[in-house]
């Protein structure tokens, strides 16, 4: 048992490792700054950030489509710059802005991609196609955005890659299919594979990912498990006052933020650590009602964005 664990520690290089990875476009746009990231094998990693945060830039660096200004990255223990071909053999990728040839049918296109890989398990290709309901017999230009996206997903999964990199994969898919894609990702992880999933919406990843990295303006703000994010114990507080909202600025209390203010009602976000100070301040006024409940993940997420904004 101990020997086996030792073996694992030696042989199991991380699925993704970046060290001081930077990308500056045209000498000016600092799209990615000093990214240090480690994604382990067997996990689904959510890479979250608003539009323009640097998600696609990171992914293109990983696939060696663009070259880093500084730093390095490795996939499955293979350096992206010098061993990129070998790395990409074992990776499946869905671009964020998928463009497909017009004239080919889905089947022709997938066939040509499979031959480009040299080795594709046709049964697996058919299975994924069937599960996603991909339309294979019509020219790609006649397909809707969602149906083209399905073709893109099939090619990302069809060769049973050890690492699947998906750039905002469920854009344009209906909720039922989003569930199917989620199931595909969970299966890859269950079999020991790794999924790197970028998204601008927490909702998309919170039911899929084991861990989440949050990126903002090219900087990784935070990495935590989904459970860990939840346990940040951010409280959503609603206070109704008898004589209107007092002039007092509650956001002077460390960590507290005023979300909304009406005539006699205030909504606040506050971490548990700030609750004592908040309640003591509130107690100086006449209160009609006070509700405190755990914030949901989206609010925690937005709060993290805000903090990063303030810092940057």
């Amino acid at each position, binding site marked *: 048992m101990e020997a086996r664990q030792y073996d694992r520690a030696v042989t199991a290089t991380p699925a993704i490792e970046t060290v001081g990875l930077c990308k500056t476009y045209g000498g000016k746009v600092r799209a990615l700054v000093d990214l240090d990231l480690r994604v382990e094998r067997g996990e689904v990693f959510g890479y979250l950030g608003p539009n323009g945060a640097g998600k696609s830039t990171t992914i293109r660096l990983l696939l060696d*489509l663009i070259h880093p200004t500084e730093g390095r990255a490795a996939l499955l223990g293979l350096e992206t710059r010098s061993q990129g071909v070998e790395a990409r053999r074992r990776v499946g990728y869905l671009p964020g*802005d998928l463009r497909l040839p017009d004239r080919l049918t889905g089947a022709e296109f997938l066939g*040509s991609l499979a*031959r480009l890989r040299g080795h594709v398990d046709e049964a697996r290709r058919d299975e994924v196609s069937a599960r996603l309901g991909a339309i294979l017999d019509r020219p790609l230009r006649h397909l809707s955005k969602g149906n083209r996206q399905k073709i893109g997903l099939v090619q990302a999964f069809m060769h049973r890659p050890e690492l699947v990199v998906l750039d905002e994969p469920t854009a344009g898919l209906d909720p039922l299919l989003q569930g199917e894609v989620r199931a595909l990702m969970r299966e890859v992880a269950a079999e020991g594979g790794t999924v790197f999933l970028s998204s601008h919406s927490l909702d998309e990843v919170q039911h899929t990912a084991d861990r989440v990295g949050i990126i903002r303006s090219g900087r990784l703000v935070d990495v935590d498990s989904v459970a860990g994010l939840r346990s940040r114990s951010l409280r959503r507080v609603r206070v109704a006052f008898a004589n209107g909202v007092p002039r007092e600025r509650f956001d002077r209390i460390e960590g507290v933020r005023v979300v909304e203010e009406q005539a006699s009602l205030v909504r606040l976000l506050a971490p548990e650590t700030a609750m004592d100070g908040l309640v003591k301040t509130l107690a100086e006024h006449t209160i009609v009602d006070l509700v405190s409940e755990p914030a949901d993940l989206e609010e925690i997420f937005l709060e993290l964005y805000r903090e990063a904004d303030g810092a940057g």
Partner: protein
Amino acid sequence: MPVELAVGALRDSRRGIAAWCVGVAAYVAMVAAIYPSVETSPEFNELVERYPEVLKSLFGIVEGGDITSGPGFVDVELFSFMLPLLLLVLAIGYGARTLAGEEDAGRLELLLAYPLRRRASVVAKGAALAAQIAVVSVAGWATLLVIDPLVGLALDFGNLCAAFVGVAVLALFHGWLALGVGAAVPSRALAIAVPAGAAALGYLVNGLHDLAGWLAPFRFVSPFWLVGSSPLQTGIDAAGTLVVLAAAVVVLAGGALLLERRDLQTP
């Protein structure tokens, strides 16, 4: 596997290639079919004699050459302008479309995320281009070969083969130049403009250096001059053709290496 890239590219453009073959064969047949009426009309020679010197020079109408002879007629009517033009249009168009055009359209991102070396994909696309030029050239060559006995052109078989090798190499050079430029810089416009400009200059230098003496030193860099005009009357310049072929390899390889060093452009 890069081979699949070349094969796939050919498979995707099979309809286009077929159309080019039909077009080139039809044009060649039409020109050849005119020959019997030219052969028997001395006015044609007189008409051509009255062409301005510039045109005669451009079309390779040489003093003492007989354009009412089969080889002379085919040289002037096909190989001095129209056939090279057609094949260059095919080659430059495809060379610019297959890489720079795909990148402009955002379709290169998925391809380059596959386990291929970038240089291998450039070479594969170059091979597909070479195959297209070869197929269309063979269509023209076979048409002339079949029609010759019917209209009495009396072409020399060796010169006929050499003539098509010559235009094919010219097309290959300019097509690979388009591919190489598109690999080096992500611009379809440049990938068309550079080889088209080079072709126009090379053609003019070759055609006019006799008339405008100051152009004469530049003839050595004109692929058209290196391959040689009037191939059916005098054959092609083997050494010059090899030089053009070598230059084609250099521009393709240069483009392939530059593609490896730059960022993919994404829309």
